[in-house]
């Protein structure tokens, strides 16, 4: 049996039941649940952004053995709403991201755009590019296509498929679009009544 990429044992946060889950390499895992059920909280606990206890391992290495910043670069969480601190989009990137921009249907000039003038969908895609710069092994995507038109949804899905095709990489995805989950996701977990269970 191959080793799971991400293993979660007894992850406790707030008043939720302890969470056990695993994510295999190459997998796209679905996370279901009504709005407010706690999908985003689970993501935040997985990246250690909110107080939590329990064992979380990436490729066998416990996150408690590495600095939180190091962990968050390997397990990247794309929140439903992106936040930006500089005036221009380009100031948020470190290196050359032209290929990633292109694959998500964003022009190179988007780096010169003022953040305030970007649409929600543009910001969402730019935030994904920003996250990918860290070369994470696991992506936790919270409604990544919520504000995208159908053409760009296709590009985003292709990027996710390409991501999990790389060795030792995988994705957890939430979506309000049942057909998208149908197209992309294999195993699923559901968050309801403070519990997270495999379906």
């Amino acid at each position, binding site marked *: 049996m191959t080793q799971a990429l991400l293993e979660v044992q007894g992850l406790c946060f707030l008043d939720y039941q302890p969470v056990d889950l695993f994510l295999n390499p190459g997998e796209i895992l679905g996370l279901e649940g009504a709005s407010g059920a706690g999908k985003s909280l689970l993501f935040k606990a997985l990246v250690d952004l909110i107080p939590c206890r329990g064992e979380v391992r990436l490729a066998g290495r416990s996150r408690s053995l590495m*600095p939180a910043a190091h962990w968050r670069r390997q397990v990247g969480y794309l929140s439903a709403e992106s936040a930006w601190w500089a005036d221009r989009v380009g100031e948020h990137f470190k290196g050359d991201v032209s290929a990633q921009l292109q694959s998500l249907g964003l022009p190179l000039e988007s780096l010169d755009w003022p953040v305030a003038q970007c649409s929600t969908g543009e910001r969402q895609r730019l935030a994904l590019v920003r996250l990918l710069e860290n070369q994470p092994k696991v992506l936790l995507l919270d409604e990544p296509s919520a504000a995208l038109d159908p053409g760009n949804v296709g590009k985003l899905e292709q990027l996710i498929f390409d991501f999990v095709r790389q060795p030792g990489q995988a994705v957890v995805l939430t979506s309000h679009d049942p057909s998208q989950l149908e197209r992309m996701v294999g195993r699923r977990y559901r968050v309801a009544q403070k519990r997270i269970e495999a379906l």
Partner: protein
Amino acid sequence: MILLGYPELASVALLVLALAGTSWAMNLGVGRRVLIAALRTVIQLGLIGLVVKSLFELRQPWLVALVALGMLAAAGREVVARQKRRLKGPWGFGVGAGAMFVSSFTVTLFGLLVVLKPDPWWHPQYAIPVAGMLLGNTMNGVSLAMGQVTEAAFKERPVIEARLLLGQTAREAMGDIRREAMRVGLMPIINTMAAAGLVSLPGMMTGQILAGGDPLEASKYQIMIIFMIAAGTGFGVVAAVWVSAARLFDERDRLRPERLTSSGR
């Protein structure tokens, strides 16, 4: 030196009363506050005048230290009271008072031991006014800067968390906020230095000249005091900003906004 009589002092008090009266007549709502603050000035300055006078006579170093600590405690309380959101528990008072203690008292010691060199070095005629001047100014800087850190951490939570999510450490994620807080805390003393003597004579120099001192000597003293204030405020602000920014995060670099009180006093 022209000695100030009580009738003359009372005549100035009439000006403040007139201001309060104007506020009442025009319904500006500050009359009460002006009067209470003026009354506090009279009582507090009267008391400190008596305290310093008796310190002169008693000449006990531990009494000087006690008065200085009392002033520090009052400054720490004032820093807490001026902040809209503050660190919960003993931190709000502790960080501010600690930063002022380290910076103001170090600079005061430097001023007494290296610059002024009175005999004995803790002579209350020098120690109390210098410590007071430094504490008062450091208090302004520290309370402005700490208020800036806590308010920004609360308002810019999404941005801070976005930066943490991208793998920045708490220190990196707070960089802009820390810089802005430093700027805000140091702006008053930088402005004072830039405008000193052009627009107005600083309070201490004015007092010295009015009390019959040589204007050139007064300038020298003022320069010394301003430099000490700049250093005291600067280091106090650095310490306060650094510790309060760090206190907003835990050991796993998570932002912990629940460590702040909600807004309002």
